[in-house]
């Protein structure tokens, strides 16, 4: 949607008055297009041109930041419908639901556990993004105490859920400095919610049950002066969710429809009527267009797969996940265990790791730095050769880990064996199978029966 320098130039006064600090309007336009200048520097630009320029320069889905003093979370600024078209940028935040009626002590304890949760996925530390505190009691004092208890146990971003503006105001006060997402303004309460959001400079969720009503309400609220908005389309179940969230994304990206150009918050459990599986619906929301997802409870058995799914789908297709090069232990190997080498492309590594692990064989897996490429690609690109493999053997001190001198090469690069013999004097180069799936059989026959 961004305008070119020439398009911007046409909207400027074209008087070359130099008051903006640039010699000509065209030079200023070029700087604007490159986002290196601010339109406010031009004192003569018309209101109409200003609006047009601002509209054109804004991203189709507004970037909204939740959180303040502690951690922050950004959602929005997405540019595509499918990850293969470019990438998905801002991973949807996973928030854990807390009810004020459970009492401050119970909340503090529950928040502390979830706050401390960290799970490691290929060297990436994943965890909960924040907490959604709900005024289930309907009482402002109870709500404020719950918010304070959450804050005491965690610095992570907050979502405050309260339909009554008076209750919300008390919660916001207890969250001072945290810049929580306020959830939600609807047809009945929006004027007061807007006041609270403005006073606290906090993002505001807008809720309605049709896209028409949602867009209309967003326009009203924008006029009233709140720009950081999040949409809650009140989705009900799998099909309705997919339809609404797809339509919102399509309107924003393909039609530049400003009234729905915001990230979306979902409550997969709120839509549940016994037929909806919160985890499965949350997974749908990760793939299909949510910005914030509120989960009913903290359960690592559910959270871990959801976090990994999010990580996988939000991986930039142009930059595949790489595994840290190094010497990996599989099934607690000792000095007699086979030493195998592969590349640090994550899928290659996983394929090999999975097969070896599944086979039950203890083994050392040497992951060479092949710049994240698969075996054949890396070999063709000169990133997986005898020199690199020998370097990996030395840098990981593999020689001290195994008491034999045999290394198993991927079958796809059997051609490297001669060179590798020269680079690794004293080592026997064994040629492994071409496909990872054949590793268990290979180990059994070639290592178990011939070597061991």
């Amino acid at each position, binding site marked *: 949607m961004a305008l070119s320098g020439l398009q911007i130039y046409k909207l400027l006064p074209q008087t070359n008055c130099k008051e903006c600090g640039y010699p000509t309007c065209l030079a200023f336009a070029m700087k604007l297009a490159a986002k290196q200048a601010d339109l406010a520097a031009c004192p003569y630009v018309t209101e109409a041109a200003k609006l047009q320029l601002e509209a054109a320069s804004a991203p189709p889905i507004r970037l909204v930041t939740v959180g303040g003093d502690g951690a922050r979370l950004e959602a929005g600024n997405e540019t595509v419908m*499918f990850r*293969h078209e470019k990438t998905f940028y801002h991973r949807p935040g996973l928030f854990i639901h807390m009810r004020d009626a459970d009492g401050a002590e119970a909340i503090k304890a529950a928040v502390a556990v979830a706050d401390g949760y960290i799970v490691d996925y290929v060297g990436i530390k994943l965890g909960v993004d924040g907490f959604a505190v709900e005024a289930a009691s309907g009482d402002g004092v109870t709500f404020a105490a719950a918010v304070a208890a959450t804050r005491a146990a965690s610095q992570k971003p907050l979502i405050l859920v309260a339909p009554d503006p008076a209750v919300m105001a008390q919660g916001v006060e207890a969250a001072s400095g945290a810049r929580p997402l306020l959830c939600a303004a609807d047809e009945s309460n929006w004027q007061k919610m807007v006041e609270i959001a403005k006073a606290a400079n906090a993002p505001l969720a807008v809720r309605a049950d049709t896209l028409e009503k949602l*867009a209309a309400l967003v326009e009203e609220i924008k006029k009233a002066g709140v720009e950081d908005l999040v949409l809650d389309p009140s989705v009900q179940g799998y099909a309705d969710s997919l339809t609404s969230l797809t*339509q919102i994304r399509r309107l924003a990206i393909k039609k530049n429809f400003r009234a729905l150009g915001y990230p979306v918050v979902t409550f997969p459990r709120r839509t549940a009527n016994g*037929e909806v*599986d919160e*985890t499965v619906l949350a997974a749908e929301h990760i793939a299909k267009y949510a910005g914030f997802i509120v989960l009913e409870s903290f359960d690592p058995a559910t959270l871990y797969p959801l976090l990994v799914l999010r990580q996988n789908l939000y991986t930039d297709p142009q930059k595949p996940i790489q595994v840290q090069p190094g010497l990996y232990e599989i099934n607690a190997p000792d000095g007699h265990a086979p030493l195998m080498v592969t590349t640090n492309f994550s899928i290659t590594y996983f394929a090999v790791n999975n097969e070896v692990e599944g086979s039950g064989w203890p083994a050392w897996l040497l992951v060479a730095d092949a710049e994240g490429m698969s075996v054949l690609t890396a070999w063709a690109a000169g990133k997986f050769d005898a020199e690199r493999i020998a370097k990996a053997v030395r840098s990981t001190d593999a020689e001290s880990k195994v008491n034999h001198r045999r290394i198993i090469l991927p079958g796809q690069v059997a051609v490297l064996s001669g060179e590798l013999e020269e680079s690794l004097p004293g080592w026997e180069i064994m040629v492994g199978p071409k496909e990872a799936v054949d590793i268990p059989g290979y180990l059994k026959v070639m290592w178990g029966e011939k070597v061991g």
Partner: protein
Amino acid sequence: MPITVEIPKEKWAGSVRVVTLGATRAEGGTRAKTITVGGDATLPFLHFDGAIPNRPALAIEIKDRKPDDWSPLLYETWGEAMQDPADWARAAEAAGADLLVLTLSLTQANGKPNAPDNARAVVRQVLQATGLPLAVFGPGQAEKDNELIVPVAEEAKGERLLIGVCEDKNYRTIVAAAMANDHLVSSKTPMDVNLAKQLVILIHDMGMPMERIIMDPTTGSLAYGIEYGYSVMERLRLAALQGDSMTQQPMLVTPGEETWKAKESKVGEGVPESWGDWKRRAVNWETLTASSLIHAGAGVVVLRHPESLKRAQRMVDGLMRHTE
């Protein structure tokens, strides 16, 4: 202030091809029912863009004998039924599968190499035990696949089995057996749009009607490459809708096989505490892999655990229920 929101709709030139698995007595087989997949004239479950005449079919994978290396959770759930393929087939049907996928092992229970007679006998038993449509896949090694799948195709002539695995280096024998015995084939390629298309063309060039080809674009498990398969499937579906005829085959995925190999599902001990309760995690792993691939356009989904099957079924129920 009323606002008119005009929903942008996609007008697609093509649709996914309709493929029917299984044949009833009237159609020359013995199946109690047939399963039809494909026909989608839209991206997955976007009913407002186009028609979706058929649901994705959910299959349970069984084996010709009790496997040696499956997760304890799978032994626990299928129990004694795994000792006998016919019992296992009945249990899978009772669990609610739309069809069964029988994968043949390299060896028999007594340790001897699997052999044509055994494969024939097992397929016969399974066909007698259940009225569901059936897919039969070899162990995945070219020579063995050909040795076992050809007699299976003859044994089940007319049943419209889905047979495989057809891969770029080994498809002719299996395609010929399918053509001679009125079956369908599964065309499997490694996570690549062009390779998927190319193998369908090669199989079709042998004379196999398009209505009897299913594509298997290869499944990556959650945490182990799901995003590659996911995006290849989305791209294949977009190509199909844009009218590229050779990408219009319904897609088969195997989240059961892929996820139950993964440590996250397979084992309960020696893993980080942060992974949570083993059984819930394991079933979530399979269910979420399956559900994500269903959103990416899967037409046939092969699972291993009955609970994943139930959860996927409920999701598909929900996704197919829509108001105009």
